[in-house]
């Protein structure tokens, strides 16, 4: 009888504690979601009916995976083209992108778009809107919303164009940035007297880390073959390659900090609340995270690198030996498009 009573208590106490915890949990979503939903609704309110129809897709529509780094018209984007919006509508669209991202992340997006404008102006590219030649420049970025902006139900903001694909899935308080593709060409340009390098920190921090490794560590990290492009670029959703390189557990504490700091260049594009949670996850998974490197170890040389862990894949790949043309990708093999939170 005494045993039965003890067993009953052992069962009842944790169940009651769990029930109390659930009852006291906040119902309203926390984090950035409320302001992102507000910004999305403000953007939708700025549109006419036809535009609202053009920008809206079902959450599960093929549009979700229909993104690319390619310029139009080689890749036909759907949604609304920034160049087709009235100034207040365009401002509302960019406010939505800004609300979903961090300040640094939004600046990175703007720098990539400015770079494309430079490409259009300086390198003979042209913009002709729909049906014209190859389309470069700030006007050639598209926005689409998949699902209805909601503080509880899943929905997705898709923003992209040449060298940029941002996918932010919102599921309650969870905001997910994977998969996303920030890239740059030119990788260095001058605007208003300032030198801009949209992916400069991604480059410099990685070279600093590879040079902070000792010879034995470098031997493990540096692959003995050339990598000329992203391995898991657009179209490679749901693929996970066998990891290679050096395990972060073989790095010193300061080297591990440097590795996390590099990863933050991608993770931190998303709003601070969601990025902090993601960084905590990456830190917890650090012992199972790899760094692989291919190419020069002297900053200014050509190098590819990959950070791969249980919940992250980041690739940085100069294109065709051109330091002025960089592609990168950020994925989470367990949570692309918020799969972990949506159960899809």
């Amino acid at each position, binding site marked *: 009888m005494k045993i039965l009573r003890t067993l009953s208590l052992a069962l009842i106490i944790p169940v009651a504690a769990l029930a109390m915890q659930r009852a006291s949990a906040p119902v309203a979503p926390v984090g950035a979601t409320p302001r992102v939903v507000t910004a999305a609704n403000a953007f939708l309110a700025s549109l006419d009916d036809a535009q609202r129809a053009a920008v809206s897709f079902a959450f599960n529509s093929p549009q979700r995976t229909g993104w690319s780094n*390619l*310029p139009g018209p*080689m*890749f036909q984007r759907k949604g609304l083209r920034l160049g087709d919006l009235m100034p207040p509508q365009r401002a509302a669209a960019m406010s939505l992108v800004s609300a979903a991202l961090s300040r640094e992340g939004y600046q990175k997006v703007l720098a990539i778009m400015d770079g494309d404008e430079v*490409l259009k102006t300086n*390198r*003979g*590219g*042209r913009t002709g809107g729909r049906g014209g*030649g*190859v389309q*470069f420049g700030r006007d050639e970025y598209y926005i689409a919303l998949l699902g209805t902006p909601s503080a509880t139900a899943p929905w997705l903001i898709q923003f992209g164009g040449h060298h940029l694909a941002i996918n932010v899935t919102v599921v309650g308080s969870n905001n997910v940035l994977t998969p996303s593709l920030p890239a740059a*060409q030119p990788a260095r340009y001058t605007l208003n007297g300032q030198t801009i390098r949209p992916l400069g920190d991604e480059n410099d921090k990685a070279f600093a880390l590879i040079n902070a490794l000792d010879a034995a560590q470098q031997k493990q990290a540096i692959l*003995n*073959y*050339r*990598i*000329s*492009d992203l*391995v898991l670029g657009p*179209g*490679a959703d749901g*693929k*996970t*390659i*066998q*990891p*290679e390189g050096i395990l972060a557990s073989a790095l010193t504490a300061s080297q591990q900090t440097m590795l996390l700091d590099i990863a933050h260049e991608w993770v931190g594009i998303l709003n601070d609340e969601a990025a902090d949670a993601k960084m905590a996850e990456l830190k917890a998974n650090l012992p199972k995270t790899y760094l692989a490197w291919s190419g020069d170890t002297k900053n200014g040389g050509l190098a590819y690198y990959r950070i791969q862990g249980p919940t992250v894949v980041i690739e940085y790949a100069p*294109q*065709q030996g*051109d330091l002025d*043309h960089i592609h990168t990708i950020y994925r989470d093999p367990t949570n692309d498009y918020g799969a972990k939170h949506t159960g899809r």
Partner: protein
Amino acid sequence: MSTRHLVWSGVVMGWLWAAAPAGAHRLDEYLQATRIGVSQGRIDLEIDLTAGASIAEQIFAMVDANGDGQINDAEGDEYARRVIDAIRLSVDSRPLSVTLVSRAFPDRQAMGLGLGTIRLRASAPASAGTGRHALVYLNTHAAASSVYLVNALLPSDNRIQISAQERDVEQRGVTVDYRVAPSEGWVRGGWLLTAVAMLGVVLRRRGGHLQAAWQ
């Protein structure tokens, strides 16, 4: 090259001159990216081929045999077969027969700009039992102008563990060392057999003691 090819080349080159920005995309390289899926009974190959803008016409002409500017089913099949025939695949030194599963070709305009990707999917039966195995993959297609990527996918079957990938510097080929662990049922069966055997030994000993006690 046929007259139709020459006309098409002129049209495409003119279009490229008008539309393509210098240095914007892959130019004189043919990127051949292969992902290898290892499972117990099969090897899957995902081969993505992207021709740079300045060699795209040459590649397109290889595929578009009748020179009409379109890739029909027969031409697509024929080119895919040529690629597959140039693949050498073996497990434990036994050559495998690779079969095309699907193929998708981009349109001429996308390919002409060095942006379109030919996607081939192929597989080969490979009955690898438990233990260590070595898969060897080599791609010899269009070697003169190609750059390569080759990677093993993380196996979805957790009984398969990849222990090493050794590539040549250009990634034309790779040797994938992997191990197939016994299935759970086999392991469980093994434990059950061991348990029964041990029980038998114990009972026999006890039987001996009892017999001794009765005597």
